[in-house]
């Protein structure tokens, strides 16, 4: 077995080692089959190391934790303050600013588009002085670790296409998600866990999440994201049925292995070896996955740092801690989804609530990784699929208002994994509507993410329908300005 670099190293009394496996049915194996099994290691490696075998060059990040804020967090209420909007609150959005940008059908037919100032106060934080909304007090404490990007842009104006774009580089269904590309390119680091894990916050309404967001597209299906659920079975049918304990399953597998060894002798088909290995891996996963989800070995201070929610399985806080535990165990791409950032109305309360659910745990995750020396090679990303309009959707009332979707600029932050901490990249205009400098398209973001993982985004390709596809389609520039020297 390959050493597991970051594994906590429990021992499973029932785990079948290579030696005992061979020993157990050594009698039944013919010479060819034995020889096959002995060379299986290299065979397995070829499968597991991905098509690239190793990163192209200069990998800064070994893994990614992507905190996806689904719905479109409002940049001017969180990270990119625009005092001008408060000054001109209620005035019409000037046509010279909008410049014909298409609007969604939700506000596109409004006869008036009044500018709306943020209801939140901003303060500068850390040495770097990132301005942050008063609703992000915990994020403020790790401000110096954050690389803010204020100039993200996309083409999509509705959630489905926009999330699909962020995750797959195309607005329309059918392309592989980022994590699937990485699994395909770099393979699996820990044999006992999937290389691409998805966690969604439980019990959130908001825009629906769909499996396509972590789909394998045209890549082989083993590269699709495996969504861990918060319930009894983190993955489909992980647990043995009631009444079947681990010993019973072990005995059944031992005999099944014997049947397969005979079958291998009879058929001389490598698929049979693969099957034996898959079943054993599944057996190990029945341990390794619950182990990830079990926080009993975490210290009280760590648990406290993530906030009270960490005790609720499926909460954003609990998922952040699961993400750290997965990262420790060598899972390459861990994606959290936290829906509910779609403030078409009731923005003040909505954002307050969203921040309450995510602020503390997001900051705790960054600090926790840093304390463990893992932030160096773990890239953390926090952001959504588009931004929000500087004008009000519907009625601008004294009490509250909402903002529609805005593709032309939005903010996200990254930390660790080779990005420059404490910098702000890109600039939006005083209206918070257009990008003034250093625009970062979704394809550029993907190219940069791949670069940080040591992958040349132009060279990780998959041939499908006669064409070499890549995550970045035929686009994507690496954003050099955010890379740490």
């Amino acid at each position, binding site marked *: 077995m390959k050493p597991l670099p970051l594994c906590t190293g429990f021992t499973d009394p029932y785990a079948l080692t290579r030696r005992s496996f061979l020993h157990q049915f050594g009698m039944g194996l013919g010479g060819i089959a034995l020889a096959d099994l002995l060379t299986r290691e290299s065979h397995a490696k070829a499968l597991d190391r991905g098509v690239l075998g190793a990163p192209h060059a200069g990998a800064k990040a070994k893994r990614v934790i992507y905190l996806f804020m689904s719905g479109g967090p409002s940049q001017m209420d969180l990270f990119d303050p625009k005092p001008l909007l408060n000054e001109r609150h209620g005035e019409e959005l000037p046509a010279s600013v909008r410049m014909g940008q*298409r609007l*969604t*059908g*939700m506000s596109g*037919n*409004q*006869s008036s588009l009044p500018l709306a100032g943020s209801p939140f106060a901003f303060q500068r934080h850390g040495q770097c002085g990132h301005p942050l909304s008063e609703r992000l007090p915990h994020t403020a404490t790790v401000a110096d670790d954050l690389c803010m990007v204020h100039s993200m842009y996309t083409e999509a104006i*509705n959630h*489905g296409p926009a999330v699909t774009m962020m995750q797959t580089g195309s607005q329309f*269904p*059918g392309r592989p998600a980022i994590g699937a590309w990485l699994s395909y390119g770099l393979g699996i680091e820990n044999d006992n866990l999937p290389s691409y894990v998805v966690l969604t916050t439980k019990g959130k309404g908001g825009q629906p999440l*769909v*499996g*396509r967001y972590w*789909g394998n597209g045209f890549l*082989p*299906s*083993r590269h699709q994201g*495996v969504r861990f659920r918060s319930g009894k079975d983190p*993955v*489909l*049918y*992980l*647990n*043995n*049925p*009631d*009444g*079947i*304990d681990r*010993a*019973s*399953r072990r*005995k*059944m597998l031992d*005999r*099944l292995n014997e*049947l*397969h060894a*005979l*079958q291998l002798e*009879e*058929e*001389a*088909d490598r*698929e*049979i070896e*693969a099957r034996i290995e*898959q*079943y054993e*891996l*599944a*057996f190990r*996963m029945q341990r390794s996955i619950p182990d990830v989800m079990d926080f009993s070995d975490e210290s009280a201070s760590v648990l406290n740092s993530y906030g009270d929610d960490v005790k609720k399985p499926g909460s954003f806080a609990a998922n952040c801690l699961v993400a750290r535990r997965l990262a420790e165990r060598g899972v390459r791409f861990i994606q959290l989804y936290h829906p509910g950032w779609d403030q078409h109305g009731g923005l003040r309360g909505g954002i307050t609530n969203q921040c309450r659910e995510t602020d503390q745990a997001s900051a705790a995750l960054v600090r926790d990784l840093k304390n463990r020396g893992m932030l160096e090679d773990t890239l953390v990303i926090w952001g959504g699929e588009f931004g929000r309009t500087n004008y009000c959707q519907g009625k601008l009332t004294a009490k509250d208002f909402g903002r*529609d*979707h805005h593709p032309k600029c939005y903010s996200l932050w990254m930390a660790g994994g080779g990005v420059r901490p404490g910098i702000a990249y890109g600039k939006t205009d005083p209206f918070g509507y257009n990008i003034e400098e250093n625009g970062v398209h979704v394809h550029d973001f993907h190219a940069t993410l791949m670069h940080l993982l040591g992958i040349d985004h132009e060279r990780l390709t998959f*041939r499908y*329908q*006669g*064409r070499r596809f890549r995550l970045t389609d035929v686009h994507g520039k690496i954003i050099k300005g955010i890379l740490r020297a």
Partner: protein
Amino acid sequence: MMPSHPYLPCFRVFLASFCLGCLWAEAAPIDFNRDVRPILSDQCFFCHGPDAADRKADLRLDEREAALDVLSPGKPEESMLLERVHTSDAEDLMPPPATKRELTTDQKAILRQWIAEGAPYDEHWAYRSLEAIPIPKVDDASRVRNPIDAFVQRRLEEREWTLSAEAERERLIRRVTFDLTGLPPTPQEIDTFLADTSSDAYEDLVDRLLRSKRYGERMAAEWMDVARYSDSYGYQVDRDRRVWPWRDWVIQAFNDNLPYDDFITWQLAGDLLPNASREQRLATTFNRLHSQKVEGGSVPEEFRVEYVADRTHTFGTAFLGLTLECSRCHDHKYDPISQKEYYQLFAFFANIDEAGLYSYFTDSVPTPTMELTTPAQEKALSDLTARVRATEVRLASSSPEQIAPLSGEVARHTFDQREGGTFVNAVDDQTPASSNNANTLVPGKEGQAIRLSGDDPVNLKVGNFKRSQPFTVSWWMQTPDVKERAVVWHRSRAWTDAASRGYEVLLDQGRLRWSLIHFWPGNAISVRTVHAIPVNEWVHVSVSHDGSSRADGLRIYLNGREAPVEIYRDHLTRQIKGGGGDTIAIGERFRDRGFTGGLIDTMRVFDRALHPDEIAHLGRGIPLPKAIPVLAEAPLRDLREKRDTLLDQTEEIMIMRETPTPRESYLLSRGAYDARAEPVTATTPAFLPPMDASAPRNRLGLARWLTDPAHPLTARVTVNRYWQLFFGKGLVGTPEDFGSQGSLPTHPELLDWLAYQLIQDGWDLKALVKRMVLSQTYRQRSQATEAHQAKDPENVWLARARRYRLSAEMIRDNALYASGLLVEHIGGPPVKPYEVAASFKPVDHEKGDGLYRRSLYTYWKRTSPAPVMIALNAPKRDVCKVERAMTATPLQAFVYMNDPQAIEAARTLAARLLDAHGDSNATLMDDLFRWMTSRHPRPEEQRILKQMLEEQLSHFRDRPKDAQQYLQTGEAPLPEHLEPTQLAAVTVVANSLLAFDDCVMKR
């Protein structure tokens, strides 16, 4: 053997793309298609290929004449092409290093030799028309059963190999039974087959299986992937939709052995066939199975374009084996399909009256649709329709009654005064109108008028009319400008979010449009004034509907005179109520453009269609007559209401129905829906045979073109897909791409022979299938010899049968069938077995029969597909798929061993066998093994099974509670008379065999 055929002479080199590096040593003649085109296509065409817009240095290499600029035939040394691929100057090197493409030494050698040999070009193999192919002679015909084998054996003999012997009989019956019915043979069927020593035994078996109704289910299962079938709409909101009647048509079509050209034609264009039958129209649902959108705020045109594009791509993948997608945004980089030609194909699929979004607020089926009436409904409807017509005729010649003028008024609002946010209704003080202060009162036509903000409605409390109810609305209005679109007033919940269900008066390019709508635009009646109404001037408008649900029953009157109108839509077959927004609202609608700055004065609503004399009075002050003549319409209204109610009760399904005039289609720059460039009309790409000049330029013409025997692709693509279905991999390894970048056929003559034969047989699919499964190529053993393994590990040359895992459906259905739990009946609504409760968006599973139907009927939700099916490599069915990638993952083990469906099936089988065998463990294990693998266990296997059973028995004896618990899995009743520990132990063994190689693999 055809000496002229380019593939036969040389086989040392197969597919330059994957045999390079080992084989290009001998200098045998180059074959352009086999050796050179793949290199040029993959390495050069991107910049020097069919795409004119992106072509570099004005050089194209996909056509010989143009390529001669850089080729000197016969003189490699003088050819610039070679110079550029060999140069050490990075500036000049081709392909340029920046493209991250690179030629291998072998590829360069091929190019050199090709130029030396005169640089001949050749037409791409897949675009050549089909011809009769002679069956090759073989040296050893001992294993040749039919022409397929001759083609395969011929190839094998070139490698000094031969077809393998026939598989063991148990394997053979298992293989063919799964392949033709999707289910395993029973032990009894196996025994019968083993006992049948006649030479026809196997053919008889095949005939029996082809007659089985399960055949249609098996074949339909594969077509569901191609057709991207789903029981939900997809995208993000992904509501359920009712399209399963189409799936049942597919099963029937396969079982009836509908000729495959009809199978294609009906699905593409059944609605356009003369006197199209119900089945022919139903078949066109195929084109509507793409994902559909409802997400709030989406731009309808963006998604309408996406739907048409999906139809076009599906057409390309399923029937042409071409990657049309590539030419959506630019000319195809590899194949001779220009962007314009893409949109010319696209234009065939655009001509239906559809909306880009389905309705969020109602459950209306997106148009166009057809009613799926039951025979009883059909009869009742035709009776009622006849009676309505007869009554209309009778009424027209009857003598009218006289009634008081302007009777039937249900609302009159003068908007002279707002009190507490309300406006009095002069004819009923219980139903005042209301509005906030954003709509202001200003001097009007008569006293005050209301000036509309465009974002705030004036809500009346009347107007919830059925479509059989005649009614009239009249009002004064003034528009401040020529409105491109504005809602004057309406009775509906929303625009696109409710598909406008209700009725409405809009300003449309300054003209008035008056509509009654079930689902806009395909199920509505609508008329529009020929002229724009004047700006900044008071106009009196009346609109009425006579209860007929016909566009000629709609009237618009301007200033008391009937206005000339054009009919805009004339197809209303379902209710206009029931979608919410039950009363008239003026000036604003949810997410629509309001009547900003418009003035409205004195609005009156009548629950009858007013007489022109009454309108003349309202609109231009002509004195009223004493009485108004009206026809005694009550019986007609009753009949219409009955008919309408019945229609509303019928089920509907999305189909294709061609619009009377083709929709305008355009080349869309960069593929963007809003970047219209030149207009295009429907036609087929120039590199394929032309459409018959007399054929209509619509989907029917397209289907006729596609199924014309002269078409080079359709039959090839079809036989390749079915070859893949029964042999695990296509003769062309890229079933979705027969173009320049696709794989070359491994057995081109066989592919062509099968394709030609399919056409000769009148597209008889069962004959094709039978031909395939009767061949020795199909029947041979699957075990590889060492030589096979060493020299042909991928089994390209078919010296043995291919082995591969059974499909997701087969694996689940097998467990159900062996256990006896399978509930077999064909068709019907989708069912929700256990797995849906474990899906991404869990829903409750059913109780009873729905748990045990074949997997073909499992409820398919695009954003949360059946998780067991997905774990076993079924595609999500977002888009057309013609191949399933079978990868093994550890997650599959959980499905085999822990899925309640599998455990319950194992237990049920165990119980049945315990009943049959009692204490005889040996025969029980034998029978069990046989149900799972179709063969008897070998002695060593018997020993292991015995040990497994004993271990489990002793395990459960020590833990009787565990046995009890384990047996609780699933809903099927637990047999009381069996000893729980014994039942549990046998269940474990049965369960383990569900995960056993011989159970899940086709060998």
